[in-house]
């Protein structure tokens, strides 16, 4: 691949998904695009890029963006966010909402381990939400990931990363080489395709947003833009959970850190007034 093609693809990715591809990512690009070219019946990556450049084929562009996303995830990833949810978020919301439903949004859910972890936790400890109904919306830009999430089918490897065996026994059934999360848990999560770069999305207001391990792929101004938009999708008193390597510091005033809870933020009162 020549450097012009590389620039073309990285600009496309940035424009479409906010994803910044470092100049050292040539190898990554090639290893991800080669299978797509093959799938499309094209002899090489160069041909693939040629087709994208000349035809501006939306379907192909969408797929190109999809294969370039990094979808690494696992059940109860990093553990502490789920402890924060259990100890500092759900009890507060259950009190405050008094019977109205609690809405949780996983804003870059990949193949579904994150929303399903939340669903299993809530299902096993109904006291956490004091009987208040919970709705979990899970979105991602990758249709390929969303489809896997909807099916709720996981490999043996995936169900052994972060998932306690008791939860596997409780919530999964075996299906050939795979494990399927129960209908009960699946029904708690709605998967929808959504691009965080899209300024016009409307999913309603949420009480909790998990936006973890996706901002790391964006540049500073994009992070700010995305977080400010998240703030607009939040009810007063709502919480934001970021990934272990992510922060709001220096990027937005819309959130303030929750005391002694790394990665957990509250919608700031300033942001509430502004909205």
């Amino acid at each position, binding site marked *: 691949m020549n450097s012009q093609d590389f620039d073309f693809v990285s600009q496309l990715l940035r424009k479409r998904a906010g994803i910044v591809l470092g100049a050292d990512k040539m190898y990554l690009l090639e290893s991800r695009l080669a299978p797509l070219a093959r799938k499309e019946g094209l002899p090489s990556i160069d041909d693939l890029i040629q087709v994208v450049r000349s035809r501006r084929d939306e379907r192909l562009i969408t797929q190109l963006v999809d294969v370039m996303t990094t979808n690494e995830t*696992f059940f109860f990833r990093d553990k502490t966010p789920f402890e924060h949810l259990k100890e500092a978020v759900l009890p507060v919301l259950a009190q405050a909402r008094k019977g109205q439903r609690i809405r949780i949004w996983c804003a870059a859910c990949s193949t579904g381990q994150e929303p399903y972890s939340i669903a299993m936790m809530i299902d096993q400890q109904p006291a956490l939400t004091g009987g208040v109904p919970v709705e979990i919306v899970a979105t991602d830009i990758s249709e390929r990931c969303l489809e896997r999430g909807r099916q709720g089918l996981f490999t*043996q*490897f995936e169900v*052994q*990363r*972060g998932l*306690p*065996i*008791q939860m*596997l*026994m409780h919530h999964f*059934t*075996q299906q050939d080489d795979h494990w399927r999360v129960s209908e009960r848990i699946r029904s708690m999560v709605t998967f929808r395709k959504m691009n965080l770069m899209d300024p016009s999305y409307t999913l309603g207001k949420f009480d909790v947003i998990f936006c973890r391990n996706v901002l790391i792929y964006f540049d500073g101004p994009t992070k700010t833009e995305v977080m400010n938009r998240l703030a607009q999708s939040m009810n007063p008193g709502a919480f934001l959970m970021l990934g272990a390597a992510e922060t709001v510091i220096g990027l937005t005033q819309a959130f303030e850190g929750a005391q002694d809870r790394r990665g957990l933020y509250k919608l700031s009162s300033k942001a509430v007034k502004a909205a």
Partner: protein
Amino acid sequence: MKRCLIVDDSRVVRKVARRIVEDLRFEADEAADGAQALEFCRKTMPDCILLDWNMPVMNGIDFLRALRREPGGERPTVVFCTTENDMSHIAEAMRSGANEYIMKPFDSEIIESKFNEVGLC
């Protein structure tokens, strides 16, 4: 340093597992079947046991039941590590006193994740 007893009739599996648990800062010991493992535990109770199911002389589940009846035998954290990967085997292992369950093939990430689950690291 915590001690981990690796019980598996395959020398290759024991070697691979040893490398992984040593990286997790355990001192590793090995046994090739349940009987050897039981004998070992009677001398020195390990902190945790990585346990295969199918082995000659004494299999993993019989070993586990015997272990849990030994004085101090309730102490070690037992993590099954076996090719038996169906729900009925998992349930039987847990009923018999296992703390976690790994379905082979395993890698360092899975062992670390499961050890984490039971508070070993």
